[in-house]
């Protein structure tokens, strides 16, 4: 199928298919003052070759060519290049043929002999009509999508994300995904894989924050038997598992500098060397990576190699936080409510007006993941019906952010409330200290179950693993 680029009248291209050399010359002369690129051929075979090669915007077609019967070329054009406008030229008295041509998809016809004014006006009208049609098609193609490969949302911010994913997917270029926790970085990576020509291959995700640092290299590159204590069997790493597909390195900012240099070499050569192995293996992998930090700030801080940054930062894709997707909050909430209700075997009838207003006001610092938790909580603890503000218990979540301190103070993580403002300035703690205390308390209350603590804190487990690692070093 020959695809047409949208036509700008000034840059349109026209092909004249006419077996009479003098008529070709005349038409070319008639169109000489027009801004269009115009060329001519004298037979159907040449016409097909030029159409395939250049995909003109319009073909002026003589219906009776020496190497094709009356409507053959037109029929073939409509089948293989339906976006190309065709104006047919017929001899005097061939009106039935012209009518048949229009029925087959020609946009207009010219009866010979053709005057200059008639030729120019007919072709211009046909090109303008095609330009409008192409614009309509382009608009239809960019229609607002409310769902896209696991995403739900029709906000402008998400439309831009969907478009970037679609545009980036066909290439092998690395996409560097950034965004806060809970904004959908892995969903994005999976969407890119699903839209890419590698969709039939494996998608392998490796969360660099969720794996102890001394194991990341083995997870990424694999190991030979006996490569280290406990390596009882040879094992291929994520790089080899992703051969022919996509390797997604999540929280890549957690990778230490030594491993970053090995990753850089892998990116440059495509060669993988398992831990303890002498031989390298060549793999064909498309890289996607993500971080919830500002990668350039990490480079500036010396925590991320600049050369690796530039190697990976080919197509940046930033995911907007939910608070910047106000248009999507209620749509997501309704979708999640019905999904969780199905899972729990319950029947809910949506949200009250107050609940909807409350959800729109809420800052959703944990993004979609936090919204999921709120809705699941309401579905699990309630029998069904309409969800109101009481069922959402969002005030509790607000209060949890102002979590009580052992001495009875609270920790403002949002707008300071009146009580907090009234405290002595001596009560102000370093934010990092507050964060550490809250996380450690949550882990203790969950008997060391980090995923559970993460769920209660509305953060990704990887965030907690990363913090613990930082604190153990510091």
């Amino acid at each position, binding site marked *: 199928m020959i695809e047409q680029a949208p036509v700008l009248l000034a840059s349109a291209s026209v092909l004249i298919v006419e077996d*009479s050399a003098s008529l070709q*010359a005349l038409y070319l002369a008639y169109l000489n003052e027009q801004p269009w690129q115009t060329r001519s051929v004298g037979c159907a075979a040449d016409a097909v070759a030029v159409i395939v090669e250049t995909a003109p915007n319009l073909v002026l077609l003589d219906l009776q060519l*020496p190497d094709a019967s009356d409507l053959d070329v037109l029929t073939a054009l409509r089948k293989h290049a339906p976006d190309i406008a065709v104006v047919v030229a017929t*001899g005097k*008295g061939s009106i039935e043929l012209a009518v048949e041509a229009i029925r087959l998809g020609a946009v207009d016809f010219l009866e*010979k002999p053709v005057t200059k004014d008639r030729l120019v006006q007919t072709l211009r009208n046909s090109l303008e009509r095609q330009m409008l049609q192409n614009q309509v098609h382009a608009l239809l193609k960019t229609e607002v999508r409310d769902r896209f490969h696991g995403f739900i949302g029709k906000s402008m911010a998400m439309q831009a994300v969907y478009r970037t994913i679609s545009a980036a997917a066909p290439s092998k270029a690395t996409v560097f995904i950034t965004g806060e926790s809970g904004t959908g970085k892995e969903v994005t990576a999976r969407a890119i894989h699903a839209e890419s020509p590698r969709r039939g291959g494996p998608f392998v995700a490796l969360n660099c924050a969720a794996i102890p640092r001394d194991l990341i290299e083995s997870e990424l590159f694999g190991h030979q038997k006996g490569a280290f204590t406990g390596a009882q069997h040879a094992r291929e790493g994520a790089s080899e598992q992703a051969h022919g597909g996509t390797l997604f390195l999540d929280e890549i900012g957690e990778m230490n500098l030594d491993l970053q240099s090995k990753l850089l070499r892998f990116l440059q050569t495509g060669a993988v060397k398992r831990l303890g192995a002498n031989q390298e293996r060549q793999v064909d992998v498309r890289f996607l990576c993500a971080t919830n930090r500002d990668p350039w700030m990490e480079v500036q801080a010396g925590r991320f190699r600049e050369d690796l940054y530039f190697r990976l930062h080919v197509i940046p894709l930033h995911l907007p936080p939910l608070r910047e997707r106000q248009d999507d909050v209620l749509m997501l909430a309704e979708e999640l409510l019905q999904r969780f209700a199905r899972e729990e075997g319950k029947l809910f009838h949506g949200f009250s007006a107050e609940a909807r207003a409350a959800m729109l006001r809420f800052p959703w610092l944990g993004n979609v993941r936090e919204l999921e938790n709120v809705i699941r909580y309401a579905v699990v603890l309630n029998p069904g019906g309409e969800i109101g503000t009481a069922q959402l218990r969002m005030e509790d979540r607000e209060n949890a952010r102002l979590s009580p301190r052992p001495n009875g103070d609270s920790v403002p993580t949002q707008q300071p409330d009146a009580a907090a403002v009234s405290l002595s300035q001596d009560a102000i703690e370093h934010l990092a200290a507050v964060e550490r205390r809250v996380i450690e308390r949550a882990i203790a209350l969950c008997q060391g179950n980090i995923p559970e603590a993460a769920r209660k804190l509305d953060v990704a487990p990887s965030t907690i693993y990363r913090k613990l690692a930082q604190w153990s070093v510091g």
Partner: protein
Amino acid sequence: MNELPISMKQDELRDTGIAKKPPGARPAWEIETVDQLIKELGPEFAVDVLGTFAGELSQRLSRMHADRTPKHIIREAHALKSTAATFGAQSLSDAAKSLELCNHEVPNEEWDIRVDALLNLGAEVLGAVQKWLLDARGAKK
């Protein structure tokens, strides 16, 4: 083109659509068309395009002279019909159309007369165009 049969009897041309022009009838090649072409294209383009027309007409007449099989003649007549009308040779266009429409469904003798008439008229048009081109190119020099 000088070998083309140009000596046809008046009665042989009857009912062919190309009857001999009475005094005052339009010429084989209408010079007004040239004026229009010059107006639309400018003199240089007009000369170029008419030169192409003369070349094409010469080739078609030669091919028709060499191969008088009905299928070939009809195909050439079809092409000549539009081209001749476009460049001001309306009589030639009418004759070509007449020949195309009769589709060899006439006695051979009449068919031959029609073909000869068309060739004759074509030669007349060609001569007129070539003369004009010669004058136009000479005037340019």
